[in-house]
């Protein structure tokens, strides 16, 4: 079972990102689950969301303490919250940052990736909303879901938000996907 934990801040769409992962992987015939860990309801508060992917029915409801994938949407959390709890050397770590400002992390994790999601978001949306963007890097680095399924999930999930928002999100994910090596 793959266990994905996402760290971000209230208002950044942390929960939506987990939901999109669950929806996209469901399209590929897998069982999936997504749920939030809401803190206090205010913008900017640290928030976690979780997704699980499995071949079999997922029954557990506990939060994710031993992630196989960790996504950090807001890198300012690294110095303020213990975002890496329960991660092992093998956990795939994806951080929204244009560069590695934390050289020590390279010794701790074998699969450490940085992706310029904020840059892409500012360019495409004019806002620092990175929740969908970073899913491009997620797809590339983990291989857990295809870019096509993510696009389909965005179309479904954002169907009421209109064509413009859908195509911008798809563009953003695709750019982040292409950018990841």
């Amino acid at each position, binding site marked *: 079972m793959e266990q994905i934990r996402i760290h971000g801040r209230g208002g950044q769409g942390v929960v939506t990102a987990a939901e999109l992962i669950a929806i996209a992987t469901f399209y590929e015939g897998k069982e999936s689950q997504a*749920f939030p860990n809401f803190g206090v309801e205010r913008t900017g508060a640290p928030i976690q969301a979780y997704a699980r992917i499995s071949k079999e029915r997922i029954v*557990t409801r506990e939060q994710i303490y031993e992630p196989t994938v960790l996504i950090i949407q807001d890198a300012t959390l690294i110095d303020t919250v213990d975002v890496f709890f329960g991660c092992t050397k093998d956990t795939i770590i994806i951080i929204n940052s244009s560069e590695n400002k934390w050289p020590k992390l390279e010794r701790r994790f074998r699969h450490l990736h940085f992706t310029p999601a904020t840059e892409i978001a500012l360019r495409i949306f004019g806002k620092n909303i990175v929740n969908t963007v970073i899913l491009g890097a997620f797809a590339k680095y983990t291989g857990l879901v295809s870019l096509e399924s993510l696009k389909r999930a965005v179309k479904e999930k954002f169907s009421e938000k209109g064509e413009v928002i859908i195509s911008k999100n798809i563009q953003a994910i695709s750019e982040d996907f292409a950018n990841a090596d």
Partner: protein
Amino acid sequence: MATKNNKQILEGSRAIALAIKNIAPAVISAYPITPQTHIVEDLAQIKADGQADYEYVRAESEFAAASIVLGASATGSRTYSATSSQGLLLMTEVVYNISGMRLPIVMTTANRAISSPINIWNDHSDVMAIRDAGWIQLFAANHQEAVNAHILAYKLAESLRLPVMVNVDGFILTHSYESVIIPDSKKIKQFLPAYKPLKGTYLDPKNPVTLGAFFTPAYYLETREALHTDLLASLPVIKKEYKKFKNIFFEEFAHAAIHDNNLKKNKRQIIDDGLVEYYGPAKPETILVALGSLNGTILETIKDIQNIGVLKIRVYRPYPTEAINKIITRAKNIAVIDKAINFGQTGPLYSDIKTGLDITKAQKINIRSYVVGLGGRDVTKKMIKLIIKDAPRRNNQVKFIGHD
């Protein structure tokens, strides 16, 4: 959203709202409260989009919402409401009126802690505050069970003339995504026909009746006794309807059920009569008993642990004494895991389990009371393992699990 066979991936609240839409109540009234909100927002949106015919009556409080569905139901309409926490507490007076008037109202409670201190997260304190109100109480452990329970709830309510509450864990079920099958209205009709109230049971100008009238000491006791007797008499009906449900909603039933393709190899069995569901060995050392979504995490925990069984209570009121006793008397130890505390006593389910067993057996079996998950404290596999380890020790006092 996205079909694979008939499966979709949906938020729990959305799944419940779509099930209610297909059940087709005539009147919905609710007042939004976290974490019930998404259910009633979706139902309002469905109505606004012209996809449903029900009247959606906005209310100024939960007391009003409950009163509105009471009134609508009293005129012979199928109704729906949903609430949580303080909302349910504010409804309490009406909740008792509804059962007293024998109105077949179905209501979802997205279970949440109660104040004070204020807390919006999940536990079972809200439903336990009204468990004695004379409603049938169903609990769901996953999205599919929630959908199935609502369909069953209407059938029970309308055939038994008793209100039914469907309990779903707030956030854990209401705000999570997983795969689920929503049966369409045609299929639902095969099991749940259009509601036709019996003549003389509802407010009808052609057949005037009085509901909820003044009863003097000469009559009141009998009405309470009758409600109690009728609730108990609903147990075999629930079992029967559950069987019928399984036959019609084969796929929906299978998707909700416990999946174990190697029962024999794993030396485990599944017993499910619609009132309770047992998964575990024939002669377990310890059985864990729980309500709602907690059963999922318990299942995951005991996967690799021998000699442990799990008993999920589907129907909490009326209390299915016989069904529960048949299972728990197989074990040496029973760990009852409550998500509520009956202050000054024990976990509420624990008290029920003890009361249900006759005294000679209750003394032989070691029954323990554990309280977990209050106010949204995450219930982890580690905590369940700790309970399994602790359960053989005899102790009559309630134990709170989950401190760091």
